[in-house]
């Protein structure tokens, strides 16, 4: 490359030469920004969202998710046909915790796992506070959601500043026990709205 094209490599604006892998292995698909929203949903084929066989791995990034209601739990639901986010799930969850007063620490398996449940799955952000600076951030991987052969595995790691001033580092993993494709994912609190924050959806290429 030469001239203006080479000068613009890695730049956030202007014209560049397309990368050999079409812009990187990770592709930002969609960013949703909450503003007192009851939920944030990523639906394949809607509002420029891709959640199909295009990518074998999808990644959701949670950036400073802030709850509208005190002590709310952040949750995820998966759509496997129809309009309901009710795909059957079995999950495991454990977390480490430590409070700002240094009076409580621990590493424990969580009771809010799921056994063939169809409700929304708690994915961290437990008992979140609504102080102005309280929020949760983290990552969720969703593997091969378009498969019609296998279950759909997902893995979440989230850190939360809770209403009781705890740092809670939670790991949730499980699978949607369905062979129908998962074509949409919805995030919401178990009570109240998502007051602020961003959720970003990426696709990761394998070729």
């Amino acid at each position, binding site marked *: 490359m030469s001239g203006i094209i080479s000068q613009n490599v890695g730049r956030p604006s202007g014209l560049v030469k397309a990368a050999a892998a079409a812009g990187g292995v990770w592709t930002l698909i969609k960013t949703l920004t909450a503003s007192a929203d009851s939920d944030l949903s990523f639906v394949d084929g809607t509002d420029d969202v891709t959640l199909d066989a295009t990518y074998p791995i999808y990644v959701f990034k949670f950036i400073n998710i802030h709850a509208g209601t005190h002590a709310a739990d952040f949750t995820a639901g998966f759509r496997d046909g129809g309009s309901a986010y009710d795909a059957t799930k079995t999950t495991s969850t454990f977390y480490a915790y430590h409070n700002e007063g240094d009076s409580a620490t621990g590493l424990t398996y969580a009771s809010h796992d799921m056994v063939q449940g169809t409700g929304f799955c708690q994915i961290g952000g437990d008992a979140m506070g609504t102080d102005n600076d309280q929020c949760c*951030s983290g990552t969720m991987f969703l593997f091969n959601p378009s498969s019609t052969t296998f279950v759909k595995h997902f893995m979440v790691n989230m850190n939360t500043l809770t209403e009781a001033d705890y*740092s809670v580092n939670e790991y949730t993993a499980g699978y949607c026990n369905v062979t129908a494709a998962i074509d949409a994912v919805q995030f919401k609190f178990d009570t109240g709205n998502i007051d602020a924050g961003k959720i970003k959806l990426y696709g990761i290429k394998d070729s």
Partner: protein
Amino acid sequence: MSGIIAQNVGRHGGLIKAPSGGGGAWTLIQTQTASASADISFTSGLDSTYDEYCFKFINLHPSDNDIVFQTNFSIDTGSNYNVTKTTTNFEATHNETGTSGFKYGTGDDIAEGTGSQRTGLIGSDNDESLCGELRLFAPSSTTFVKHFMARTQSYYGGAYAWSNFMVGYCNTTSAVDAVNFDCSAGSIDSGTISLYGIG
């Protein structure tokens, strides 16, 4: 976008409009290579450009044996690394004779402290090192605390595979604009740390 530019979005050739992240979701901002370094500090490139930053640790090797590799944060571009933090720390371990462990690291965490946070343990035999990553979310926010998550894998104590999980938040609403890595004793003899922005 319109015309040829719009048609070429996501293509493997031709001219396209640069993506907002500057050429892919992950952008390498800086790599620093240790050479008997007292510490390694990143004092630029941490701002509002990206919602998440990731430091990758590649074969960090200390000068002193069985030391703590540690992290701290700054809100004044590296003049002071003393941001208040609350953290958790747990570890999974297994040694070469078959002894394993999985526990919360009592005393390895911080409750509203300003000191450096343990991020891993490393031995100094020639083949001992640490690899892993630390993710820092939205460091430029002046509204929220700054969450961070580190996972490292190291060769420690001459015989241990040591997997360390350190996570917490900088309890400040000031922007975090610099990060420092060092060892509890001696220097970082060799290895690299790379900083990426995730757009």
